[in-house]
């Protein structure tokens, strides 16, 4: 996954208090939205974790 610009959890559809299972991601230079599952077998999720580990980067809470 190219350079991540923003990442935000998506509120679960039934029980908004449940743990989110999807993260909405945008990349630098693109308006396209990628819906990345919270699943360590997904390589995009691993890239999001790597990005979030850098100081200043945060996965935003769901709306």
């Amino acid at each position, binding site marked *: *996954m*190219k*350079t991540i610009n923003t990442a935000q959890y*998506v509120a679960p*559809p039934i029980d908004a208090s449940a743990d989110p*299972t*999807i993260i*909405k991601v945008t990349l*630098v230079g693109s308006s*396209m*939205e*990628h*819906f*990345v*599952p919270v*699943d360590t*077998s*997904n*390589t*995009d999720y691993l890239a999001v974790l790597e990005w979030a580990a850098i100081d200043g980067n945060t996965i935003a809470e769901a709306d």
Partner: protein
Amino acid sequence: MALILHGTVSDNTAVLDRPSSKPIIINGNMAVAQRDGAAVAALGDGDEGYVTVDRIRHTIAGTTAGRFTSTQEFVNDIPGFNESLNINVTTADTSIAAAEYFALEYRIEGQDLAHFAKGESTAKPFTFAFYAKANAGFDFAVGFRDLDNARHCSGALFTTTTGWTRHVIQIPADTTGNFTNDANESLRISIILHAGSNFTGGTLATAWAGYNAANEAPGIDSIFSSTDNFISITGLQLEVGDYDINSIPPFQYESFGDNLIRCQRYCRQHTKSGNFQGVMMGFASATNNCRALMYHKPQMRGVPTVTKSGDFIRSHGTATALSFGVATNSLDTATIDWGGTDLFAAEQGVLITFKENDAFIRADAEL
């Protein structure tokens, strides 16, 4: 089903006991390009991932000034193949920083590698073959990396020519470290085209050893040395056993349909091929929301990332582009929330269609 082939070669009589009925490498003939079969330009300013032909990853590390175009190129000068992957340099990088790296990669699930018996006393060698041509003679490396045990082996460098040349890279058996039996990446094969001293500063790892980046690609040239440069590859092939240019078995062909289905375990892209073509069925829960079902077929390797590009509308309604969100996702299906103010009749079925511009919806579970 084991496939037994017998054939006479120049140096001996080879007997191939191929332990799988299908080629280990999917789309080795570059026939499938779901994401984009046309040229994708201005690549190189980040880790590009999968951009043109299926299953071939464009891995970039560090910050290179080099830029390139990737194209599924139709070929007629290599008997038996119709497509190749072409990398054409558009901006050179002659000042290579230590962390720079560019490779074309093929990544394989651990559960698909049991027949190499890696980590056992009976471990089998690997042979990797492919066709390549370039604008000049370059030395590049092929790296094999075991992600489960942090080990690697780079075999030997290969040298391109200006015509199609079949390169055969022999990687010895490794009696240390089993591949993990799961759907995650265990083996990474990298055709390394550009690298800084972090990857070239050591001695080429011609035997399996603990991973040391400096030993991945010593002695290689850089594809980014000039905007004159290009490389094309096709016919990627991985075999169990030790073969050379005389004994390597023929490329194992699949029908386009079989090839496509195997690619779709990793990526399934529904690209618009006509205005108002149907995409998925849903049910409107209210006048502003419709939840629709997206099938992932065949079942995907892992829960995929879902991406939408372009505009989608509801059939037989106002042609207002719908908002998009993913509500749930799994190996087999995703549920998609389509939204828009007063676009639906509540409690009714809805057909979601492409609008009039270019569009796609993609499920991506690549390694």
